[in-house]
């Protein structure tokens, strides 16, 4: 964790909806340079949507998102693509191209954007794969990888162009304990070694709190709490307490909204 500097990403008064359903209703948050910032909240709160808004894949209904001082949604497509070269994103599924090998997946952004000779690309790809421990798996196809390995390859690919920041979409979901440990360590060490800024969207409290420098908790379209991991773990705010401790009932009700059980049972189907 480095000292507080100017935020790399500034989200201000963000509103976004899908059809009639409001996803964000006035979200404000800052992502500081060099930090690992976690955005947490239960499933369905729009965490992935927030990453897509930051990456310019979705447009907000209102509000602004600035990345490195530039309003993402005011950029033309050329400038947006130039900005994206400096942003990596690790998708939950890995999003590897399934018809090419691990090596070619990592080489893909380099071949698309750099014009480097193939010998140089080979060296860079091998170094990136070495960093995630999968240099030996370079000839495998994505279908031959486990979920954890696919995410590590995707991480190597996201790092290929040496971006200024990486966004992780649920990096820990569905991982066995070993893969989980590897990913936690990788995200943390890559952030420090490459002087990255990282945004982790996750609902895995323990793993995320281990490596995050700052945590935002969002629910029902708003940031409901924020702070350092220790503060959040010991927070008295009912919502944060329920989420961080994994309590089954609380401000987020156990039951999905429904009419009274008695009425429902006595009513006609």
């Amino acid at each position: 964790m480095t000292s507080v500097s100017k935020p790399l990403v500034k989200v201000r008064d963000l509103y976004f909806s899908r059809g009639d359903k409001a996803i964000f209703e006035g979200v404000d948050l800052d992502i500081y340079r060099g930090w690992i910032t976690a955005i947490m909240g239960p499933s369905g709160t729009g965490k992935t949507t927030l990453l897509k808004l930051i990456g310019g894949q979705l447009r907000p209904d209102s509000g602004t998102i600035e990345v490195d001082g530039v309003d993402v949604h005011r950029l033309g497509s050329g400038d947006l693509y130039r900005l994206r070269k400096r942003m990596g994103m690790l998708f939950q599924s890995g999003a590897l191209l399934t018809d090419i090998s691990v090596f070619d997946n990592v080489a893909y952004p380099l071949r698309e954007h750099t014009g480097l000779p193939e010998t140089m690309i080979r060296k860079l790809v091998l170094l990136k794969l070495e960093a995630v421990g999968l240099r030996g798996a370079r000839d495998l196809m994505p279908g031959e990888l486990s979920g954890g390995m696919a995410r590590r390859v995707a991480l190597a690919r996201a790092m290929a162009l040496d971006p200024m920041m990486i966004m992780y979409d649920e990096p820990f979901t569905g991982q066995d304990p070993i893969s989980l440990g590897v990913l936690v360590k990788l995200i943390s060490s890559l952030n420090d070694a490459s002087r990255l800024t990282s945004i982790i969207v996750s609902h895995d409290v323990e793993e995320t709190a281990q490596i995050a420098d700052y945590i935002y908790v969002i629910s029902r379209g708003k940031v409901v709490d924020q702070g350092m991991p220790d503060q959040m773990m010991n927070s008295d705010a009912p919502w944060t307490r329920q989420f961080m401790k994994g309590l089954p009932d609380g401000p987020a009700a156990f039951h999905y909204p429904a009419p009274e059980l008695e009425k429902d049972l006595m009513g006609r189907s």
Partner: protein
Amino acid sequence: MLDVLARLGRIGIGILGHIGRGHLLLLSILGGIPLLARRPRLLIAQIYAVGVLSMLIIAVSGTFVGMVLGLQGYYILSQFGAEQTLGVMVAASLVRELGPVVAALLFAGRAGSALTAEIGLMGATEQLSGLEMMAVNPIKRILAPRFLAGVISMPLLAAVFSALGVMGGYFVGVGLLGVDDGAFWSQMQTKIDLHEDVYNGVIKSLVFGFVCTWIALFQGYYATPTSEGVSRATTRTVVHSSLAVLGLDFILTALMFGD
């Protein structure tokens, strides 16, 4: 009453939105085609996937359609003592109508459905989003080469269909039913006109290739990213393409051959 009107209005707006999205996608795809001049390998790989891999079904179907035409044509023409014109009948039917139309229907079923499923699954598995976040435009990089490959492949596939159909008709007519060899070819040579028949057939198959590939890519790109969504999109590709081919064939035939 108002409810019905409102529902009709919603359906109308939905259809117009659909058409608008389709045309915007087409414009973006066309915008990506000049880039293929710099990277012809992308196009060649897709011509192989879309065109070459469709050859078998086209070749077999073409041969059998030609054989059936030879058989049916012979029975009808022989009633008027005109079996020597069998070559003309087979060739004209194939080059003008059956070649472009049946090849396009087979193309929609074989290559169109594959394109939709491929693009739809790329969407469902976030590969398209992944490309966007790598600053690679998926419309230019993934859709444009497939589109051009479809437009290039379709007339060639229709030509193969027609050529093998003629050979099938020849085999049945001349080989099995005893039509004169020389009459079969010479009548065909005299009566089949390069502009009237062959060029019009090529224009038809170009139009069908354009429309079928466009529909397939549109359905794949906008498929709901679930297994059910991709399955529905694949079905829609085959149904919409087939209807479009048959409808357009009527319009094109009326324009080309009508007085």
